[in-house]
């Protein structure tokens, strides 16, 4: 484990003076034997030393195995970027469209029907069972190629898609992906702007964390499967290969690599608090373009197997019969959850309408009589009229309503019952379509803007927290300070979770035993605004309440050395 090797290596580095060392004292290895709990009224003396090993430009390289050994929670906390999956969606749809016949045969009936829908063009449209069937069939009878009539209605070529793949992809992204909670929000640092720790995910994107990278998105199906009311959109994802075996994540670190020394009041023992987290704001020199580099990302990430899911409503949803609300109409499809098939279709239809200029197509007989007129107004409202009502043209409706009917009928081809045509489209070897250089650059920028995300990660790199200090000693210049621990300072277990609850009822330092006169504050000191801290001098007396609600008196004794303080800890209650 990296945590077991880095600290010694840093010591070696310091010892060999390869880096400018700032240690002011010789540092003995701490005694690992835990002392007995301190009793009420008992006093013990502890000495805390400020250890400094300032490293500059240290290339902190992490291999794939090392990263994978880190706690998942920690890795998951390192948000790299919002991965725009538009290319993935487009590629998936394209691949679905161009499956071989053998591959098609492997799809379920509903998926095959969905595929046919996606491939539907005026040329190959099957309108059997729809309101347009009779009309279109009759158009050939009077010399109007049905495909031409449909194409003209849609304002496309006869072999163009009914719904352009880009439109399908965009609607899927917006209404299926974009409505999934895990694609709407990602977890991040809790702060004033984000008190709940939730951050919006960029449109059309999935949040990408370090854990996704090192695990090749192994939990993709879990994360983007059913969640709350949302049925999810990925039921299976396997082999999303983002990294190669020689993957290395490198960050250049400028920091005091040694931990702070503090006191666990429970037994008045010396404990260590990782110092990297506290220095995270300054640990990386972002002016250095190489402050972070990633090597070993696959040039063209692919998904070995990916199964998209789309769920239909259990009922046949009728198209609208009214123009109101304008541009939408009154189809019940608009009241459906955004991710349901029928809703998606009308959304797609509306996108098609948006690209369609108002126009009329009139087909005349040789006598000059209008055999067939189809008009689309600027809102997509379609009016079809035929001579003598030939072909029983459908009543006026929005184009999206017509498409809705066609789509629903076709989705159930093969005798599928309503509600039995949920679609699972399994694809293999789909290109994610992400430019890895762009991804790296995006991650670099995101991390630079949000170094807090690296706090735990960086701390784990050194993994130097030992014991459970309630406070620790920091020296700035000639000033000696005691810092009360925050939640961020707690020791973590192997999974990256704190080993104990942050259960301090009154964090900070007080001048009185009743803890009514706080002498510490979180005022900024050397960039820190998180910790309760107090500057100390020999002779100072402080009172502290630990996580077990035990009160202690701390008397600052004479300094044994310049970077060394002596404290007498007395449990007063």
């Amino acid at each position, binding site marked *: 484990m990296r945590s077991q090797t880095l600290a010694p290596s840093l010591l070696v580095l310091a010892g060999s003076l390869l880096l400018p060392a700032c240690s002011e004292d010789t540092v003995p290895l701490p005694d690992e034997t835990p002392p007995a709990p301190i009793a009420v009224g008992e006093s013990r003396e502890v000495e805390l030393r400020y250890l400094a090993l300032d490293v500059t430009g240290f290339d902190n390289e992490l291999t794939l195995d090392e990263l994978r050994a880190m706690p998942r929670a920690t890795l998951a906390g390192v948000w790299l970027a919002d991965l725009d999956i538009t290319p993935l969606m487009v590629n998936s749809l394209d691949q679905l*469209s*161009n499956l071989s016949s053998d591959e098609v045969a492997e799809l379920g009936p509903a998926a095959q029907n969905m595929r046919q829908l996606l491939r539907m063009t005026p*040329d*190959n449209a099957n309108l059997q069972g729809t309101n347009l069937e*009779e009309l279109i*069939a*009759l158009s*050939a*009878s*009077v*010399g*109007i*190629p*049905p*495909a*031409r009539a449909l194409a003209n209605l849609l304002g496309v*070529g*006869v*072999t*163009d898609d009914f719904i352009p793949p880009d439109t399908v992809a965009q609607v899927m992204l917006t209404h299926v992906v974009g409505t999934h909670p895990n694609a709407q929000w990602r977890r991040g640092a809790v702060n004033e702007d984000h008190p709940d720790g939730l951050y919006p995910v960029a449109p059309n994107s999935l949040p990408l964390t370090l854990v996704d990278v090192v695990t090749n998105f192994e939990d993709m199906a879990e994360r983007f499967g059913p969640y709350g009311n949302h049925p999810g959109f990925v039921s299976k994802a396997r082999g999303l290969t983002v990294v190669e075996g020689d993957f290395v994540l490198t960050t250049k670190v400028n920091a005091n690599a040694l931990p702070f020394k503090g006191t666990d009041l429970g037994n008045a023992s010396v404990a260590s608090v990782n110092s990297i987290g506290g220095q995270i704001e300054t640990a990386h020199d972002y002016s250095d373009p190489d402050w972070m580099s990633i090597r070993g990302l696959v040039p063209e990430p692919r998904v070995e197997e990916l199964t998209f899911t789309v769920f239909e409503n259990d009922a046949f949803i009728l198209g609208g019969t009214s123009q109101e609300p304008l541009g939408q109409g009154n189809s019940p499809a608009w009241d459906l959850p955004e991710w349901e098939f029928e809703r998606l279709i009308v959304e797609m239809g509306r996108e098609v309408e948006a690209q369609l200029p108002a126009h009329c197509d009139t*087909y005349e*007989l*040789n*006598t*000059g*009589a*209008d055999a067939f007129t189809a008009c689309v107004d600027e809102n997509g409202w379609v009016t079809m009229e035929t*001579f*003598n009502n*030939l072909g029983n043209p459908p009543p006026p409706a929005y184009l999206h309503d017509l498409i809705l009917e066609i789509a629903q009928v076709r989705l159930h081809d093969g005798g599928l019952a309503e509600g039995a045509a949920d679609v699972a489209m399994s694809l293999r070897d789909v290109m994610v379509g992400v430019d890895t250089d762009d991804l790296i650059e995006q991650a670099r920028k995101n991390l630079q803007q949000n170094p807090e995300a690296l706090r735990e990660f960086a701390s784990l790199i050194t993994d130097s927290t030992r014991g459970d200090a309630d406070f620790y000693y920091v020296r700035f210049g000639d000033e000696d300070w005691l810092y009360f621990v925050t939640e961020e300072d707690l020791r973590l277990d192997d999974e990256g979770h704190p080993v104990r609850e942050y259960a301090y009822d009154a964090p900070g330092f007080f001048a009185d035993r009743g803890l009514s006169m706080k002498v510490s504050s979180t005022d900024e000191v050397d960039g820190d605004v998180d910790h309760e801290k107090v500057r100390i001098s020999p002779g100072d007396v402080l009172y502290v309440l630990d996580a077990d609600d035990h009160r202690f008196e701390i008397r600052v004794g004479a300094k044994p050395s310049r970077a060394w303080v002596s404290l007498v800890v007395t449990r007063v209650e």
Partner: protein
Amino acid sequence: MRWWSVVGMLAVFGGCGSPSGREDAGDITDPPLDTAGDEGDESDAPPLGTEAVFELRLADAAPAPLTLEMNKDEVAELFGERADEILLLELDSTPLLTNTLTTVRDACGLAWQFDDPDPHHDCSLTPLGQTFVGPDGTWQTSAEYAMVRLLTMTSANVDVSGTSSEGLAGLADALSWIIDDYGTILSDVLGIERTETVITTDALVASFRENFVATHPAAGEGGTLGLTLGDALSNLSTLADRYGPAGAHPGVIDPSYPVQGEVFGPDFKMIAKADSNLRVVDGIDADRIDAGAGKGFASIVVDRTGPTYEDELEFDFNDPEKFRVEGLIEDLTIDLRFKVGEHPQFVPSCTGSGVCQGNLPGAPTSASSVWSRDPWDIEFLVTDAAYRDYVNLPPFSVTYLLGSASVDVGRNGNPLGWIEYFVFLGLGNPPEDQYVWETILEVAQVRLHDSGFATFPEGVEIAFTIEDIPCGLTGSEAAEAVRPYLQEQASDISDFLLGDYKDANDPVDFYYRRAEDGRAYLYFTAPEDRPAAAAYDYARPGFFADPELTRRASATNVVGLADTAHEKLALPTGESHYYFEDDNGTRYRARFVVPEDDSTLEVAVAQVL
């Protein structure tokens, strides 16, 4: 369109067989057209551009029949101006003329039917008579009444004053206490009752039909009046134009008065069900593949019903299930005005000489003969009517006063209808020998210019505005009568409606269709697939096995197929390759993939670089 990116240079497709060596398929091919071996020697394929892939599908299923149920407005909309070209029926003008002339005859009452020298006309009795207005504002002085007087002339009320018969009539009437009066003599001679009209209505109708109506350029044979759909739609108003003055003919109808006759009632429906012989076929227009528009369509006629085998629509107007009209006005009548005129000069009767015995219809013996007049002149019409009545008058002879006077008709070796008068010492100045109809001609002319109330100069024109004249056909009869006429025009009507179907055809280079032998073929486009005015610029139509277009794989004549206009090619199952040249002279290779089910094939077209 789904583009399959294929590297332009990749032109080698394996497993395509070896070249057959056939230099030319010729143009007689036994079925099946054997293209095996010619489906593409791709071992030496030329460089190709990017392939564009399309599907071509067969449209084997006959489209649903067109079923129309139209009201009058929709019929008018459907046929437009073509309605004037659709003949619904040819109306026998006899009933119409009979009704018309009877109405005219009776326009001044029916008292003329009594055995009375005075016909007791009163034109105020009828609506038509009320339209007769002479110079003094009365009907008596109208020319129309003079015509009525003529038409109602009987032996009893005949007035021969001013004619060559006047003396004889006066003598007879003077001696009526010992001999028959002139009316009786006349009825005896003519073989009619005293109260019968001298010219029968039937004869007059026949004369009008043959001489007045049938001579009009727009009239049909035998004086029929063509009634078009346009006429019916216009409530017959269009008849005024069609049967108005035409050339020398003064017109059967006087267009100064609007013709009116409602044919289609408020509940009119025309129900027509036609099978379409049009089939939309999938094709390829190769020079548009770069624009993503290479797929095209063409409509073709697949008429296997006949009799013409070129009809876009297959009507059966004789089948009530497929065609019927409902809601025609049952009592079909017409309002119209007709006008007849006379020759500008008095037309003398041919009398006395033997030459006049040869003066017959169609054989006038002189330029002044009535038979030299225009047939639509009143003189001709009346004389011809009389001729029809009396040409077969049985020989007859009557003697008065112990032989001091006699009348012989058709006797003494004379032709039938030839009348000889004899009066001792020529008393009464009897008319010269002549045909009966020549006598009537004279009387008619005199009476036409002297109605007893007024006199008129030569050149009289008489017009009658008649309304609600039955056409001689009921709506029900008309509904059935139209069937044969429409059936006769079924092909034309089909053309009227869809004859321009080729205008909508894409300029495809070839298309895929199933022929009558049940096999699917590629048809290379032929001139007949294009609109009439469209160019056809293919220097080498057809499909070839080689890019140099030297080994023709298609043929125009395929045994079992009637078509000889198209280069045709039956594709083998599986993949095959052929070359063709489009109308711009650009060559392409077409790679076909035909599955066992030939209803859909895939074709990848690439330009030969």
